[in-house]
């Protein structure tokens, strides 16, 4: 006498968690920092956030339907996170058509063409941002998008006795996600407590960045602390595009910090975090191999691992030099065009495959 036709395989109990819950936590963590954009400039930056999120979700829906004929993953919230993170890197008065373009490109070239969630090599939000910089250079480099006297809501907040502490809570200049160091950190602590990120990348990144910056800079350079934190806590920790083991994450974070300082030292003024993270995204596969776990009973093979580590470090620094050179030549555009060709090519020639689903009841 049979009760049920097909047997399912163990484990039969699962931790109650899902992609949707992870994405909801990231959005929740970003919310206070994004709220400060309203404090700074009122409705304009809020509109940027909404357009970025809306265009990302819409793009995901349309392209999934078009390419894969299924839209069941739209509700996982990952495109909302992409949109929100993209908005965080943008200026408060970015033209909305450019924002919508960025949201669509972030999802299409950042995620969908690679096979959807988790299959992408590069951080989708930063991909969207680079597309905007390349295709709307005039709008993106105009100084008008960064400040509008008429829109200022609160020039500063005086809630703490010390002026410096007040700027940590609120500092009304920079990109939409960069107005509050305090809220970025609180959001990061929330993600840490919820086990959505690990401390390795943010800590290694900020430490390396700070130390190298102090070593390199004699007061000639400047950087945005909130921008570095936004990158360290929310961008560099993006799961699919970051390193997979603890040691790998420390290395990955540290190298992002190093490449970012290198970019600053050679004159990359705004995009240093974006370049550094995207560059290291590209090296995640070899990093995961060199910093793979030492399997139970396996010898450490330390000299070999060190040699391999030195090898990829040289490769990363070499590539960083190349990117900085392209940037100074204003040829980043060609890099993006090459990326577009690569995405389309790999989409056409590699068949999309879902994870195998055996024995599902």
């Amino acid at each position, binding site marked *: 006498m049979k009760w049920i036709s097909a*047997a399912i*395989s*163990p484990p039969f*109990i699962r*931790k109650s968690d899902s992609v949707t819950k992870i994405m909801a936590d990231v959005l929740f963590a970003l919310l206070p920092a994004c709220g400060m954009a309203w404090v700074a400039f009122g409705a304009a930056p809020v509109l940027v956030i909404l357009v970025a999120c809306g265009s990302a979700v819409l793009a995901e829906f349309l392209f999934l339907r078009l390419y894969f004929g299924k839209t069941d993953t739209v509700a996982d919230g990952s495109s909302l996170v992409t949109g929100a993170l993209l908005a965080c890197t943008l200026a408060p008065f970015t033209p909305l058509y450019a924002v919508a373009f960025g949201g669509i490109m972030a999802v299409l070239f950042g995620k969908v063409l690679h096979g959807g969630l*988790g299959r992408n090599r590069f951080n989708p939000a930063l991909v969207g941002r680079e597309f905007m910089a390349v295709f709307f250079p005039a709008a993106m480099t105009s100084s008008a998008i960064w400040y509008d006297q008429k829109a200022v809501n609160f020039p500063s907040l005086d809630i703490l006795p010390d002026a410096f502490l007040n700027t940590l809570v609120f500092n009304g200049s920079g990109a939409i996600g960069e107005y509050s160091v305090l809220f970025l950190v609180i959001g990061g602590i929330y993600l840490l407590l919820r086990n959505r990120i690990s401390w390795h990348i943010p800590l290694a990144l900020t430490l390396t960045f700070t130390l190298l910056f102090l070593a390199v800079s004699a007061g000639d350079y400047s950087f945005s602390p909130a921008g570095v934190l936004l990158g360290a806590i929310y961008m560099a920790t993006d799961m699919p595009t970051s390193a*997979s083991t603890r040691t790998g994450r420390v290395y990955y974070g540290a190298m992002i910090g190093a490449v970012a300082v290198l970019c600053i030292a050679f004159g990359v003024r705004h995009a240093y975090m974006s370049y550094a993270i995207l560059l290291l995204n590209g090296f995640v596969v070899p990093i995961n191999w060199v910093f793979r776990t030492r399997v139970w009973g396996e010898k450490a093979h330390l000299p070999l691992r060190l040699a391999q580590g030195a090898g990829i470090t040289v490769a990363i620094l070499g590539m960083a030099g190349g990117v900085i050179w392209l940037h100074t030549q204003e040829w980043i555009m060609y890099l993006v065009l090459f990326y577009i060709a690569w995405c389309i090519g790999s989409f056409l020639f590699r068949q999309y495959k879902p994870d195998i689903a055996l024995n599902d*009841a």
Partner: protein
Amino acid sequence: MKQFSATKAVTKERKIEALAESPFLYMPLSAYHGHFARPTVQAGDRVLKHQLIAKADDPFSAHVHAPVSGQVLGVKEFPDPNGAMTPMLVLHNDFEGTCADLHEVPSSDPPPETILALLAAGGVVGEGGAQFPTALKYRTSGQRVNAFIINGVECEPYLTADYALMREQTAALFEGIRLINTLLLAKEVVIVIGADNRELETVFAPYLAQERYAGYRVLVVSEGYPHGSERQVVYAVTGLEMAPPMHPSAEGFVVSNVGTVVAACRALVDRVTMVKRVITISGEGVKQAGNYEVPIGTPVGFLLNQLDISPHHHTIVLGGPMMGRHVTDWASPVTKGSGGVLVLPREPVKRENCIACDRCTEACPMRLMPLKYAEGWRRNDLGMMKRHHLHVCIECGACEHVCPSNVPLMASIKAGKARLRQGG
């Protein structure tokens, strides 16, 4: 994984009870995988309790004995969880419980050289799951083993059968250890228990104080899954990381489950055969959850009927929730290696893409990167699976348990291993 102890709390304090016997018994002829016993009775034969009904032809299989008296209905083929047909002897219980003439029970210890024969005659196999015949496991090359490790770390959620056994049949446990060790002459005898069962130390204390059990020690390992897996227990005792294909026995470590040792004691002292075992019946769908002693061969469906459980809205599992198997058929029997029958909520599993969150890497007791197996299988890249030491995986299921995307990691692992066995 603290929440696991909550699942055990339901049955932990429950005494071992008996249930009514089933009118039909389905005696599995398989023991250690792929090895079968050959029936020695035919349809229509009358059999007595403890009578030999199937004989082991090779050292990897084990004798099967009738757990009740009654009539043989015949050998039937049943599908096992992998779909392969396996033979079972079907018995019809006459409820008279007439015992076969057992050997005369001597008052003195069996001499060490007869121990293996007695264990083989009793059909004693490992109760931990793999059902490895003890007569083969304890066959040493004449050298003293380095350690005899008695595994009482029942790390699967819900299961408390081993705990109940250690608490209620402590005397048999210690006698079993002593008798087996007259053969093994282990340099060290260690009973390993989980931190959640620390109170057993006081249960063991009077025994440990006795002269005849001198030198035995109890090791408490931290709570968590899969801390009771054989290699993790050996690591806890010796600090040695033994990855497959290397087996602890190769280094002179003998690991036995507590239930196995108690069954061995019964075979060596009382000279009775292995025809029953203690299982935990638990899960969200069970009202009278507890630890029950049941005859081997009892259909899971009959157990559910006894406890008034409908199988239709639940997932019925034989064994633990992490490594057990899904029971789809009324007649699927309790085997010598099943630690429990679980009635779990039937929930659809939503599979999503891997997002490389690396929970699986952190959960893996062998420090593997399970996400690479799902990726390797998806890309049809067996090389990737090999490079990441697929053969070291002990298939404990911890990775898939924690996966937020419910990626079919275990299916990838099993499929990958099967492909590699066929030579890729």
